[in-house]
């Protein structure tokens, strides 16, 4: 298989290295706008620290607001990066090679952003060390039977593993940049490429190590979002206490992540002239995978209703009736339409091969997936067992500010990355030309 038969090794290197040339004024303008967004988020967080956690819209019974929504959203975004870089690697899907680097990078940044939200939600963030298991004068230890503590372990592991996977995967490409750089930049890339020279002994261990990385990241990614789902499913709240939550969350995570891959790659492809590397066939393959994950998500939405009806549990049935027809019905229908109905448009070749459609639908899925977390997290506790404890929630301005800050930080990291590090894996592209697969395929 050959994605772009006319490409040569030199052309691949040149195309990718050209993206690392000094940026234009427009680039710095985008960076400045994103920095302003980050500063707005930081200002809101600082305000919350001074005023107290009540600066957010959380209340009783809705104690988890956008901080948890965004946490789950960003962890979800991270997942498709690992799907593309690890799971599709194990399946020897050659089409993942040109987009694997961008997707892995998205994973690392998305997990980092997700990891911020528990800190923001803590209120007194400086006592975060209370959560660490070490002998202390307080005689306090974290309870490892709690899914929240599983989550802390899982997310820390995921961040560490995905960062190491990303960096290890980039080593040969860092050497390519080093060998074509001069001056200070060459010195920096010499250090960070660890003196990689592509010796046969290095490749021998590298390919084996990379395979194990992929084999380990695959169960990890499934476990991480399963653990995130148990934050809810292990509670007895109606609408949360469900055995389908783990696969439902994993599929939803990959669904949102694939959409984010399209959201990031389409502008990247245009701006950096990657049309010959990130071909329409690759974007089409992502769209087809979105149909698959969208169908799983749609099936999960349906099964939740079936389970509520089949249980004959009045509280459970009412929770789901209220979800579709109650105070948050608009959010519910945004979720259903954006996540399970609109992606079906990708069944039409004309739509899944059209850049504006691909980009537009990817944005809608991102919105839909954010609302999915809203519906689950807010909807569950807002309409629990006891009618006199029902309550509503809407994010405060401070929460919106922090959310804008988080999105700005994610895009800022990504924008900085694409101009300073190779955003396409040159090595894997060369392999695609020759073999159509991953390392050492």
């Amino acid at each position, binding site marked *: 298989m050959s994605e772009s038969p006319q490409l040569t*090794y030199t052309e691949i290197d040149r195309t990718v290295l050209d993206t690392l040339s000094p940026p234009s004024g427009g680039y710095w303008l985008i960076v400045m706008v994103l920095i302003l967004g980050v500063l707005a988020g930081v200002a809101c967080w600082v305000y919350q620290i001074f005023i107290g956690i009540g600066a957010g819209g959380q209340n009783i019974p809705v104690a988890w607001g956008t901080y948890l929504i965004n946490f789950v959203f960003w962890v979800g975004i991270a997942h498709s990066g690992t799907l593309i870089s690890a799971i599709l690697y194990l399946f020897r899907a050659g089409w993942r090679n040109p987009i694997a680097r961008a997707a892995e990078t998205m994973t690392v940044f998305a997990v980092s952003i997700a990891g911020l939200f528990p800190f923001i939600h803590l209120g007194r963030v400086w006592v975060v060390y209370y959560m660490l*298991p070490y002998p202390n004068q307080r005689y306090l230890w974290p309870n490892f039977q709690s899914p929240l503590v*599983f989550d802390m372990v899982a997310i820390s592991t995921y961040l560490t593993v995905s960062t190491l996977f990303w960096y*290890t995967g980039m080593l040969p490409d860092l050497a*390519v940049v080093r060998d074509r750089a001069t001056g200070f930049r060459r010195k920096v890339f010499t250090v960070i490429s660890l003196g990689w*020279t592509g010796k046969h002994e290095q490749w021998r*261990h590298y390919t084996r190590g990379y395979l194990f990385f992929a084999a380990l990241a695959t169960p990890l990614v499934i476990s991480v979002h399963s653990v995130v789902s148990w934050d809810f499913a292990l509670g007895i709240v109606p609408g949360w206490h469900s055995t389908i939550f783990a696969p439902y969350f994993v599929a939803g995570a990959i669904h949102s992540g694939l959409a984010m891959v399209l959201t990031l790659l389409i502008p990247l492809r245009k701006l950096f002239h990657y049309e010959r590397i990130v071909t329409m066939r690759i974007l089409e393959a992502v769209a087809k995978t979105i149909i698959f994950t969208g169908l799983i998500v749609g099936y999960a939405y349906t099964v939740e209703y079936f389970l509520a009806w089949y249980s004959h549990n009045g509280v459970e049935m009412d929770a789901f009736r209220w979800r579709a027809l109650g105070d948050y019905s608009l959010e519910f229908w945004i979720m259903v339409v954006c996540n399970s109905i609109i992606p079906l448009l990708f069944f039409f070749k004309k739509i899944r091969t059209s850049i504006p459609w691909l980009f537009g639908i990817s944005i809608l899925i991102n919105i839909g997936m954010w609302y999915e977390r809203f519906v689950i997290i807010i909807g569950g506790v807002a309409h629990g067992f006891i009618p006199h404890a029902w309550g509503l929630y809407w994010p405060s301005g401070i929460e919106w500010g922090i959310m804008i800050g988080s999105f700005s930080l994610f895009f800022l990291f990504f924008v900085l990355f694409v101009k300073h590090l190779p955003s396409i894996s040159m090595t894997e592209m060369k392999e695609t030309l*020759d073999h159509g697969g991953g390392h050492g395929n």
Partner: protein
Amino acid sequence: MATDRRVMGLFPDEKQTAEVIEAMSAYPWQIDRVHSPLPSHRISTALKLKKSPVGWFTLAGGILGFFTGFALAAYTALVWKLIVWGKPIIAWIPFVIVGFEFTILFSVFGNVLGLLIFGGLPDYKGLEEYDPRCSGEHFGIVATCTEGEQDQVIEFFRNKGGEARVFEELAADS
């Protein structure tokens, strides 16, 4: 006086490189290393490379990780006993989840450690005898020979369609 020399033959094609490696087995010169811009099964086969032992480090890390994670959770439960309905303090199912996450984490640490140790990284000294084209579009075979054989090696590489490059003398011995 015999002097060790290192001669690099640069080739633009992976298949051609593998053929040259195979052809070199008929000569007394030793292949010191082969540089390539991508991992190659053809080259590995021509060099008759064995499977990397990195996996043993990964496995060791995983085993250590599982017991570390489980022990951490169990110890924590034992020093801060939360007895609920007389159920055992060491709860197997949740602690296996912690053990699982630590298995992955420590496996990856073992994997990276194995990769660094066996791959000889970081290796900044290796850049002294290296051609930057080998990270781009060329494959480099580095052969070790005596001073007297140097011209034959150069000739051999050129006859095979490659470009030859001689690195400076190594430690001289008699």
